[in-house]
């Protein structure tokens, strides 16, 4: 038992040192409430730049976790949480894009996978929402648009759709009053719908609709493979 007691003392000494050190670090890292961020006013180019960062993080995730295999999206950890109200939905999020302080400001971008298109190419379609953060809370859903990921010879090829101010406004009218802003919302019902030419999606509660033309410009992936 004396050996154990010695081990205990050594652990205790290491513990006391570690606590003092890390307690000090923690005290430095988390102090004070920062000032407010500027209100949002994004151009289409700025939104595309933000969405491109989400796209790059998703590409990197596919490369790192699945060697490029999109099936890893089915294993996203959020789907396993017992807390999830809609664990059957696949959502990939990229947070703190453009943030000067993590969690305080910047943008959170989330893409809900709507499904895979039938055809020779394997094309996966997302509805991508961009949320503005200010003073440590989500303040506005500033953009919603479609994005498609096609794998050609193992390489990801992206198409990003245009914004629709009308669809965003229509969708926003169904938001739950008083609830913390989220995308996708707990009650949303997005689905792919038939339309030509291109890809269309609808949120059935609001009737809001988005289109991704077949000739939308291609964004080549930049993630390492």
């Amino acid at each position, binding site marked *: 038992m004396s050996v154990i007691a010695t081990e*205990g003392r050594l652990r205790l000494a290491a513990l006391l040192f570690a606590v003092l050190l890390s*307690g000090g670090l923690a005290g430095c890292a988390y102090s004070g409430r920062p000032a407010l961020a500027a209100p949002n006013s994004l151009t289409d180019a700025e939104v595309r730049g933000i969405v491109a960062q989400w796209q790059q993080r998703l590409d990197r995730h596919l490369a790192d976790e699945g060697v490029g295999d999109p099936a890893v999206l089915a*294993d*996203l950890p959020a789907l396993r949480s017992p807390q999830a*109200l809609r664990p*059957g939905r696949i959502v990939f999020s990229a947070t703190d894009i453009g943030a000067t302080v993590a969690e305080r400001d910047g943008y959170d971008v989330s893409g809900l996978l709507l499904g895979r298109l039938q055809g020779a190419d394997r094309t996966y379609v997302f509805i991508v929402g961009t949320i503005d953060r200010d003073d440590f809370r989500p303040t506005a859903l500033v953009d919603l648009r479609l994005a498609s990921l096609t794998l050609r010879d193992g390489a990801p090829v992206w198409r990003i759709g245009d914004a629709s101010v009308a669809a965003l406004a229509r969708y926003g009218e169904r938001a739950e009053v008083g609830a913390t802003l989220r995308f996708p919302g707990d009650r949303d019902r997005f689905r792919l719908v038939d339309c030509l030419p291109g890809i269309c999606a609808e949120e059935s509660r609001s009737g809001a609709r988005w289109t991704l033309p077949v000739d939308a410009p291609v964004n080549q992936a930049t993630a390492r493979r």
Partner: protein
Amino acid sequence: MLLAGALSGWPAGANESEQYSLPLGRDFADLGPHLSKIVHAAITDAAVRTGDEIADAIANGESPHRIAELQSASYIADKVWGYLFVGIPTNELFDLALASPPVKARYPGLVTMYRPPASIYDDPLLALDITKAVRTFFRAGSISAGGVVFGTDKLVHFINVGRIYHVQYEARMSRGESEQTAGRAAIYSTLSNPFTSEYGLLGTLSTGIYSNGDLAANYAGMLFYRNLAEPVQIGARTLPPILERDGAGWRVVARPESDFFTAFITPHWNEALNPNRYAGYTMGRLQALLAERCADAVDWYRDPQGRRRTRAQFESIERELSTYFGADYGYQSNSGRKVTIASVCFADGSDEQAAAADDLGRSDLWWAARRGDLEGLRQLLPADLDAADADGETPLHAAVRSGNADVVIELVAGGADPNRAAYYGVTPLLLAAAHGQTEVGVALLRAGADPNGRDHFGRTPLHASAKRGDAELLRALLLQGAQPQLADDGGATPLELAVRGRKDAVAKMLRAGSGGATNLAAAGGGTASGGGEGEPLQEDDVSDRH
């Protein structure tokens, strides 16, 4: 050793977290599997090390008394404590690890650990309060595991003070006292200690806070150490022992992917649902600071169906958490004014629940299946067993998510379609395989689930089992005709996933499985008589595992 152990509980006692200030608009990562892996590794290391010591003692001809001491439940418990201490030495270090880029990268877009920029303990108006300095300096982050949000200081309490309780419990039991008396003595041995108790220097005296969550974590820790070698009761569940004797030493029988550890994490650890008792001089200001957060807190702590809870529901939760499933764990509350969601956020008497209509298309039967509530489900029969929700998930999918095989069996016996796919083409069997639910998966196979059903990524249940390294379900799938050569849309076969994930045992079975049941048997994956291709599985094909 006890003194060292007692003092090692010091940082836990001095740290505070609160679950009123949570990351708005963000979701926590479920760290249950991550924590389970750490705890399982510690138990495995302890079993191996103890086995070596026992073998050495026998080889050296040490006394039977010494060998018996090494083989005792108390000795292995102490070893497990030592390895857990190395795994999670302090909550501050653990917080830093969780916030590191490698860990965060595994949970894209999710919060792994959260320290609020402005906690209710940060108020500048409390600057004259000397306990504020302690609360500010020693802070624990909030994390989520098993569906519960809690401070990482609870883990340190669980590991260290839980072991102190356990030592007391063992001592009392060795004197012939009853389980109940020994358990009570264990709790009150530290509650009366001026240094380690929630009343003393490391609780109310230094921080102004008597944390019921800390005490619940201590109590759960004691149960955990007992559960190493004996069954324990957590609510309605009886958890089988984590270890069993194996020759002269111990063998770990709990599987790392099971809830052998997360079963101990209960809402008692959440300091918003199980509120603290606060020193009177802080009460008014803390009430005001909680009031500022009421809208967010009520929105955050919705019920499992996504509805805002009422005051009565929050009060009911508080009452329920004031005991540990009926047992006293040292809970105390303020008698008059309180800092709780129920008392502060519903002060105007408003107590209405949001519209109860389930606009996700989930019936009462669906929710009973989701809860794994067999009796509740039976009372709702007959019903449409294949009615899907907004995401295409049927009651059978919901039952699979609950992990309750009995509910799954009840549903398929009642005629539920085991091959009904949800959104993205996910069948109940694929879901079971992805969650590592062997017993549920076998029940579905027996009910006629297609072992080769594919989702929109081209994955089969075999892909999911191979990726998890779930040898037992993978063997059952192969015996029921699952085709190991099928590749997913990315071109990966189950074998490639197993090799990539270094799941050697299942890789071996998959190589053998490609050659048929006889080769599978030769690879240690079962016998041809244990259920050949297309034949029903035998009763003993899957044991009832922890």
